[in-house]
């Protein structure tokens, strides 16, 4: 009787110590859910969700401080994916935050640009190249199409350019399915 009590209490103690050590040693830093949510978000960094970027929105979602239907660039597909990940009810995209626009980038009409650098400061992904009083331009590959630079431009020289499929990026239709 005594023996078994001793054996099991010492076992409990040893295993408890191991578990306790493992909990400290292998502690996951930060909230892994934020990373998972951030992976679904489109990384447009447009701020239409009322948060200053995709990661802050992901953090708010993880804390339950935001709704899943606040991201227009992600579209309904994004809302569905978030609902599945967070095990929430599927909502329709909240139109107050804007509507889903087709894939696009912006470009600068270089003849009109006055070099005010306001767009450079507005861009969340540093996709602008320029300096004070010189012509500014957009690195097309790095533009996310957040449109944050358009309202700040004092001479309205930033335009939207839709991304059209080329021969190498063309995706054919599934038979019998008409895509918009």
């Amino acid at each position, binding site marked *: 009787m005594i023996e078994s009590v001793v054996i099991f209490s010492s076992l409990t103690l040893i295993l408890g110590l191991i578990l306790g050590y493992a909990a400290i040693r292998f502690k996951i830093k930060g909230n892994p859910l934020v990373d998972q949510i951030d992976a679904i978000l489109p990384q447009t960094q447009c701020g239409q969700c009322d948060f200053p970027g995709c*990661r802050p929105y992901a953090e708010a979602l993880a804390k339950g401080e935001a709704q899943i239907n606040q991201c227009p660039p992600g579209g309904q597909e994004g809302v569905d994916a978030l609902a599945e990940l967070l095990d929430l009810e599927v909502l329709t995209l909240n139109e107050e935050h804007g509507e889903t626009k087709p894939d696009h980038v912006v470009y600068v009409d270089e003849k009109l640009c006055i070099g005010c650098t306001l767009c450079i400061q507005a861009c969340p992904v*540093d996709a602008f190249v320029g300096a004070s009083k010189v012509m500014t331009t957009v690195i097309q*590959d790095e533009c996310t199409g957040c449109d944050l630079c358009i309202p700040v431009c004092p001479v309205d020289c930033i335009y939207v350019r839709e991304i059209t*499929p080329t021969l190498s*990026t063309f*995706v*054919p239709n*599934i038979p019998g399915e008409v895509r918009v």
Partner: protein
Amino acid sequence: MSNNTFSGGVVIANPYPVNQVEIVQAPLPSKVVLPLQQRIGAEAKPCVSVGDRVLTGQIIAKTEDQFCVPIHASISGTVTAIDKQIIPHKSGLKSNCISIESDGQDEWIETQGCGHDFLHCDRQTMIDYVQRSGIVGLGGAGFPSHTKLSKATDCHTLIINGTECEPGVMCDDALMQHHPREVVRGVEILLHITGAKKAIIAIEDDKQEAYQSLLMFSHNDRISLVQLPTKYTSGAEKLLIKALLNIEIPSGGFAADKGVLCQNVSSTKAIYDAVIDQRPLVSRIVTITGDALTPINAEVRLGTSFEQVIGLTKVNSQAHDYRMGGMMMGVDVETTQVPICKITNCIFVNNKKPVQATKECIRCNSCNTVCPIGLLPQQLYWHAKGKNIDKCMDYHLLDCIECACCSYVCPSHIDLVSYFSFAKALSKKQETDQHKTDIARERFEFREYRLERNKQERAKMMAEKKQALKEKMAKDKQADSAQKDKIAQAMARVKKTKEDNA
């Protein structure tokens, strides 16, 4: 397994056979349109401008990309436009092209090749000739030949693909019947370039005339002719290697890894022209067939419109469907105002037929049996339909050669292969989108970090300035009090002197 074959595939006889396979020499076109985007690699940049006069064989566009070949003018004349035109592609999209109006003279640019005594030329020189002459795989895939040749550094067997397994296509058959000498010489050149010990010319056993004519010219011990049973997809590179040498090329691997090099028979003839005369690839043999006309083979200049080529034969006056490439792997084209490209081996002109209604999949397993790669098209179909790309990848979607055997045998007339090409394109798109999102995330996070760092640096700078100012003020105060002391001492001294005097 029986001799020289592989499992799966379908046996289809030529639907529009001819008695005698002839080659018609097409008249010079009045205008050619040459696309700048090729099957693989970046778009070529024009090196001529509108209004320039160009000679036949002159390079009019090139790229820095090592995978690409330059683009040559296929007639002599004047460049009339560099703009977007419809090209024969399943998307029906427009792509940048150079248009040349013929002057009717067909004046060639002067070229100097290795000559018939090519044995003294080294490997790299000859590969350069192949690249400069714009030679790509003429069987339909359009893979640049020079890339294949430079990769084949340790090659033991050369396979010349003359199987032409697509039912209805006869252009390689015609080439082998009418240019056997050039083909055999081309094989000898390839043997010299690759250093392979032996070469096998593979021909399907329904092309007896081609076999006989090649046999007449094949005097080289290192070159053997092999007949394969007529079965569709025997021309696919990996399957051909399996059938001939019983070597399996693993998924994602290349034939070159196993010491084998495959070249199409038309490409071999083009390589002959390139190395001996450095004659660029400006024309090719095209089969024009279908139930709306009398089938012919024609040697046409690249960039000639389909309309002009179809006009070489008698066509009935009904409404037609047009298709580029074979009846299995080809692509439907909307209009005949598209140019002949290097990969255009065949044009099908068929009377318009009602589209067969698609029914539900009944899981009959026919597609699984015919798939020459040994994939499970039925499973792939479900996952592609559900856009579940990860699952498709688990079922090795990328190994699908889109041969359309599965679509051909499907009793429910499901166009399985278009689901697979859709899934492949979607997977590629998702990959590029993912890459773009990753970059955006990284840049956003770096910007946040940069702004934070700037803020901290500024705060630190301000604090340092404040500290310095404080120290200076303290010092000033000290100096001030020292001065005051001195004045007080002086005053005391004066006072003392005054008192002493008094």
